């Protein structure tokens, strides 16, 4: 059987031509976005600049924001010393964080896409009820859920295991809501009917039609979930040092008073790198998939 993508002539269009644009308008948009974007970029810039400041410049008055006179990497080279006092080797924390972020993101995105597909494109019983519950669940404040969740963890024996990091990500209603909205908007029903007539079962439709079309949405959810799992810490549910994540260690390094400000910033700069990499990979590879163009093929 030919790949369904080819069968339905789903084109890969890179840039669509726009007929209703003026050069002058584009120029002003560019200026505006650049100014506003620069403002948005400031905290990241601040972290990076501060991480290269020597101690005396950190304490100088009046304070300097984005300038550094004598840049130094001392804040970075001081880190191994600060880390060497840890009872568990750093590599363990790195492993924990990467494992949790990657496994949690993959499972969350896959489960969300599967569920959203059923809720968006099939006539399964109670789907309206299920979807309403999912939407309203988003509005309930997370803080008061902590105690019932703790009871559930301890009933399942999940306390002090990786599951306390992973379970909330797998249960997150946001991903399903996002994907369902996306499929409602951009995956034409006609495509699915046509695939059915050609003898594809639901698994195949999901894999070969839905997944390629919703790729921009998958990438967006991947980025968002990765970011939240990368920064995850545990309070009251993880006790053994072996299972703690990088942000926990990093905050212990940061709590050393003003003398450690530089190193704390160096730590945040290092912690920023994986999310930025995931960002550039995911957002850079979003292309127009144009699901609806496939119907006329």
């Amino acid at each position, binding site marked *: 059987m030919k790949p369904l993508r080819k069968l339905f002539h789903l084109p890969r269009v*890179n*840039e669509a*031509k*726009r007929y*209703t*644009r003026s050069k002058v308008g584009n120029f002003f948009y*560019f200026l505006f*976005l650049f100014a506003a974007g620069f*403002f*948005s*970029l400031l*905290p*990241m810039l601040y972290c990076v600049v501060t991480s290269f400041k020597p101690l005396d410049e950190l304490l100088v*008055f*009046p*304070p300097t*924001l984005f300038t550094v006179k004598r840049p130094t990497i001392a804040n970075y080279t001081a880190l191994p010393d600060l880390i060497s006092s840890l009872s568990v080797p750093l590599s363990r924390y790195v492993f924990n964080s990467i494992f949790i972020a990657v496994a949690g993101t993959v499972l969350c995105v896959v*489960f*969300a896409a*599967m*569920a959203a597909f*059923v*809720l968006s494109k099939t006539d*399964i019983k109670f789907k309206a009820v*299920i979807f309403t519950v999912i*939407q*309203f669940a*988003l*509005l*309930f*404040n997370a*803080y*008061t*859920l902590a*105690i*019932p*969740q703790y009871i*559930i963890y301890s009933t399942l024996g999940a306390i002090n295991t990786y599951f306390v990091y992973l379970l909330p990500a*797998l*249960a997150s209603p*946001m991903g399903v809501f996002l994907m369902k*909205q*996306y499929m409602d*908007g*951009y995956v034409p029903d006609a495509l699915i009917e046509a695939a059915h*007539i050609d003898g594809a*079962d*639901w*698994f195949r439709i999901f894999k070969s039609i839905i997944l390629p079309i919703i790729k921009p949405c998958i990438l*967006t959810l991947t980025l*968002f979930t990765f970011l939240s799992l990368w920064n995850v810490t545990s309070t009251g549910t993880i006790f053994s040092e072996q299972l703690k994540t990088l942000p926990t260690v990093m905050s212990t390094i940061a709590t050393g008073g003003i003398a450690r400000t530089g190193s704390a910033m160096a730590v*945040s700069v290092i912690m*920023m790198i994986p999310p*930025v990499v995931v960002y*550039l990979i995911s*957002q850079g590879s*979003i292309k*127009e998939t*144009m699901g609806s*163009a496939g119907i006329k093929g």
Partner: protein
Amino acid sequence: MTKNKKKSLFSGSRWQLYVLLAPFLTFFTLMIVLPVISSMVLSLFNFDMVSMPRFAGLDNYIRMFLHDDIFPTVFKNTILLAILTGPTGFLLSFVLAWFINEFGRGARTLFSFMFYAPSLAGHAVYIWQILFASDSYGYINSFLLSLGITTEPTAWLSNSKYIVPIVVVVQLWSSLGISFLSNLSGLQNINAELYEAGAIDGIRNRWQELWYITLPGMKHMLLFSAVMQIASAFSISNIITQLAGYPTVGHTADTIVSYLIDVGTVKYEMGYASALSVVLFLLMVITRWATNKLINKTGR
């Protein structure tokens, strides 16, 4: 091909639908639905997290609306902050995404990176804290002092006049999260042929195009982004606590969420905290319902 054949094909693989839905639904029920229900039930109890919960009927709600001096203030603040940040945040995350989408891939990635940077950097609130620090080391204070505009440092974050505007700015500035990204991905999936057809049919400029093609095409994404904005606009608390601590002077900027966290964490009144979160939930449900009505009208 006959209709019967099609029908039997549909039903043949029907079990697969349950397989696709089951993993998420299991975790969701376990981790969200059950806790939400138990939290709602808990709002009818007095529970100090040490002794067994005692049934209290509607006592928690009666206390909230009739006997609690703080509740009316935090209720008012919550609504005020939601009105000031919700709609603007919603518009901002759409308009910026729409502007960005006017450009080619390179510029688009650059701009969206810039706007998403506060979320990536993590320390978003911290920089505002040092900007507005109350001593002369605070950047804004040292700037104003050096220009001679003020003669002594202003305690920005403990002054009831400034704290609400500052919270609004910081919240808006850091609110370009998932709804911004989802708008961006939605815009990129609007059928380009519609734009070409629109141009042929006499659409002159980008504003007409926005109203007749883009907005109707974005309806589903806009609903998502609206719900996310409601959830965040009514739950502002971290930003306030990090900037000004809890409680703020005279509770000027405290919200239902920062209050309920205090009630639960410091005073150990989980029943009352749950009742507060149920009221907040109802507030958001009503807003959600009203928003839905509005969004269904776009592009008509």
